């Protein structure tokens, strides 16, 4: 397989194009700052995108619509437990991940026990998580502990800490997908559930662990995002619903499942941030910016599908 036919290449090329077009305007000034900002904000999209990618890999109809609600709920409960006290960052992380685990189990219980289509199960459950978050967040605006906020906005070896977290997760997911039995089971299930079951793959176990993974990823992203932006807000997860699906598809994973692409998710996450900053620096208003973002997403999908048709 030549480099050109790698599906993740296109999202990285698009990100590079957006990067250089933005810098073309400033004739190269601010390259470091732009790259740093892209890595910071891209990290959140990449973390939720990796989770969504695992779910989409499970095959047609599998998608988690409860990511924003899980992010908000995990962040709200974690910040409430930490109460801005120093030294509680680890407690908060444990609570956030536990919330993610809980919503993941709940989502899968609805899918498995009630035989609901995943779209509708995660949608209905997300309404309940949202209510829980509203109920527990009422009138509170808690700042994260200073140490945690410093970590979330800080840098290590010149790269933002959140990007390191996102990078580590990406490598972990990549190794699990490519090198572990579970990863092979996941791909087999996504390619043909019936065949995988007949071949002895514990299909329901794979599905359960996937839905739990995506929720844990979302809760981690929510915890980091709240620490990064100085507190949880009820609408903090909103944009990540469409974002998580968009980065998976732009990243070259097949929406039909059975085929996932880890590097592409990161490229697409960077691209989604860079295209907005590019349009901003060219002075486009919010309306024009959205129209162009949407057009670019569709153009990439069309390009990706015609490329598949040729090969």
């Amino acid at each position: 397989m030549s480099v050109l036919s790698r599906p993740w290449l296109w999202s990285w090329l698009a990100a590079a194009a957006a990067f250089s077009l933005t810098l073309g305007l400033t004739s190269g000034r601010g390259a470091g700052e732009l790259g740093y900002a892209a890595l910071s904000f891209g990290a959140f999209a990449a973390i939720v995108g990796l989770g969504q990618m695992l779910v989409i890999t499970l095959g047609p109809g599998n998608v988690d619509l409860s990511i924003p609600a899980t992010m908000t709920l995990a962040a709200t409960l974690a910040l409430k437990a930490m109460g801005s006290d120093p030294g509680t960052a680890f407690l908060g992380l444990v609570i956030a991940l536990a919330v993610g685990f809980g919503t993941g189990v709940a989502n899968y219980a609805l899918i498995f026990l009630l035989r609901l289509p995943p779209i509708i199960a995660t949608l209905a459950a997300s309404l309940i998580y949202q209510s829980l978050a509203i109920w527990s967040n009422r009138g509170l605006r808690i700042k994260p502990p200073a140490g945690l906020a410093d970590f979330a906005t800080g840098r290590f070896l010149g790269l933002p800490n959140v990007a390191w977290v996102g990078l580590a997760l990406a490598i972990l997911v990549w190794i699990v997908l490519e090198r572990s039995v579970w990863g092979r089971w996941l791909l087999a299930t996504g390619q043909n559930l019936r065949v995988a079951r007949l071949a002895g793959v514990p299909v329901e176990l794979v599905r359960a662990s996937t839905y739990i993974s995506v929720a844990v990823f979302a809760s981690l992203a929510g915890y980091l995002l709240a620490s990064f932006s100085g507190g949880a807000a009820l609408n903090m997860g909103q944009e990540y619903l469409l974002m998580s699906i968009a980065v998976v598809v732009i990243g070259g994973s097949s929406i039909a499942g059975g085929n996932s692409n880890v590097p592409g998710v990161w490229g697409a996450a960077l691209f989604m941030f860079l295209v907005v900053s590019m349009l901003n620096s060219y002075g486009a208003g919010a309306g024009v910016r959205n129209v162009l973002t949407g057009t670019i997403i569709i153009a990439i999908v069309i390009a990706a599908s015609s490329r598949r048709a040729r090969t």
Partner: protein
Amino acid sequence: MTFLARHRIILPVVSLAVLLAATFYMQPRAMSYFGLNLLFNLAVPIALATIAQMMIIMVNDIDLSLGAFVSLAACVTATFLNDAPMLGLLILLALVLSYAVLGAVIHALELPAIVVTLGMSFVWGGIALFILPSPGGAAPGWLRTLMTVKPPFAPMAVVAAVFIAAVTHLLIMRSGIGTVLRGVGGNARSVARAGWSVIRLKALAYGLAGLFGVLAGMALVGLATSADANIALRYTLLSIAGVILGGGEFTGGKVSPTGAVIGAFTLTLAASFLSFMRLSPDWQIGAQGAILILVLTARLIFRQKGSEA
């Protein structure tokens, strides 16, 4: 097949009836012309959006841009349709046509609808922001009159629901073209073999979705009297939930227009139900989720009985 499995419409009807009975028990004063109108007023645009989503689900696709599209239609209604009716009408017509073109493109290039509509949601939202950067605009007088009319015997919302359900039932369930459209969802290949142009049928289904999306936006402005670019974003998820609540399935062209309208009304009622129970309004959204899960659980029981027989 049991009686219940054959008549899928029974479950949505029973769900709505139970919820309505509980509401009346809790608050007897709701059982009046005025009370019903208050309860269901905002259900009319949601019902229209649900019908739009149903048209897409009918051909095995899903529309993630519907909320943004309804918001855009609302913005056009509150600005152009109010200031320059001819131009406004042309723009709304163009929106419907663009939906039909979208359907044709999705079919011709074999694109995943979920992703294309995802991208389109940015496009519609962007155009809406362009037209109405800050909340505002005004509802055309005739639309305001239409949405607040007080017909005899039953409130406007109920009359509108019956009307919408009857028209779409005739179109989708009774007419020849409706049957073929459902056939595209059931088995597109055999429809094509039978000599139909699937691309035209898909364009028609999407065009109908666009039409009902525009109507939803207009109805919303008639009630809300102004618009903003985010006014209907939650309709995307509500409309999907409404279709499923009404007995529809994501695949196979199994949809029910009457059920979809009832599903939309059930979801609206679920949100206000808790305020009658004097519980905190924090749980309004959660109540919609809980009732959605309850009804779908009931459906599971129906289906198991059906498969046993």
